[in-house]
């Protein structure tokens, strides 16, 4: 039991220090802090496969956090900061890739598939409705109707 509590406490301490490493920067305004936070959360760490700069403990992520902090303090815009990193590390660092010829399928592929699915659905529905509406299947000719009437009349008491 004691060991368990010890373990939990140690984990909590470690978690605390990890956060401290991220939040150690002092900002002049709350808006700047907010901007910094969005940027480090939106940008991907080049060394890690699927971690943003905020979460990663890789040395390169620390450097990039410092660099982003510096640029935020200098008053550079979000676009400038993102462009600065993209110029060095490529589009890989953006979790939201730009729309260009290479990413066209990525951005619009799902919509194309959705349209294709709707098209197939519409095709099936129309065919079914047409089949239902076609005279051969469910409507009776004049002669058949007359015969049906006589049959029904006969049954009637």
């Amino acid at each position, binding site marked *: 039991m004691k060991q368990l509590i010890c373990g939990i406490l140690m984990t909590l301490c470690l978690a605390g220090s990890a956060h401290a490493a991220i939040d150690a920067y002092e900002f002049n305004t709350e808006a700047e802090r907010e901007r910094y936070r969005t940027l480090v959360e939106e940008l991907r760490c*080049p*060394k890690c*496969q699927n971690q943003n700069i905020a979460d990663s403990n890789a*040395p*390169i992520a620390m*450097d*990039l956090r410092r*660099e982003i902090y510096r640029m935020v303090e200098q008053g550079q815009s979000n676009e400038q900061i993102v462009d600065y990193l*993209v*110029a*060095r*590390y*490529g*589009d*890989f660092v953006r979790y939201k890739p730009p729309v260009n010829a290479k990413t066209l399928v990525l951005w619009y592929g799902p919509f194309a598939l959705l349209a294709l699915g709707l098209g197939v659905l519409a095709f099936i529905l129309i065919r079914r409705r047409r089949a239902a509406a076609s005279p051969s299947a469910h409507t009776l000719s004049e002669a058949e109707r007359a015969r049906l009437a006589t049959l029904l009349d006969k049954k009637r008491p």
Partner: protein
Amino acid sequence: MKRLLMLLPLAIFLFVAVFLYRGLFLDPTELPSALIGKPLPAFSLPSVEDPARLITAEDIKGKPALVNVWATWCVSCKVEHPVLNELAKRGVNIYGVNYKDDTAAAQKWLREFHDPYLLNISDAQGSLGLDLGVYGAPETFIVDKQGVIRHKYVGVIDERVWREELAPLYQELVDE
């Protein structure tokens, strides 16, 4: 028509299978460099051998070369080092970027393991590394006579990598 439609799932399967098969052999840790076709970023940093001397991008121009990013804290750089020595012996121009390292440790390393570099740039703060888009070490750039980056290789250069991937391009730049 009906029969062709029945083949559609098979066609879709084959299409997806080709993509997945290709995915098996892709290395997701390999990033294409954003700097291919661009000149080396401007810098002015001290030399490892002689900290009083400043090296700039101008010093790298003039001949095709490898620009190798290394550090004494980088374990795989130690593996790569003998290969670089061998390449230097064969006359390949190699420049070093000593990335976020302690200069004294770097000097000791070069004394102990032999120095294959024509010049060694001391990038203690990692500022040149950042401009080069370095995210680990070792990384090696191939630059042409004009100092334009033509290729980037991430990871340890061994005989096979050199022979198959880098040597043909390097030779092409030498012949240019």
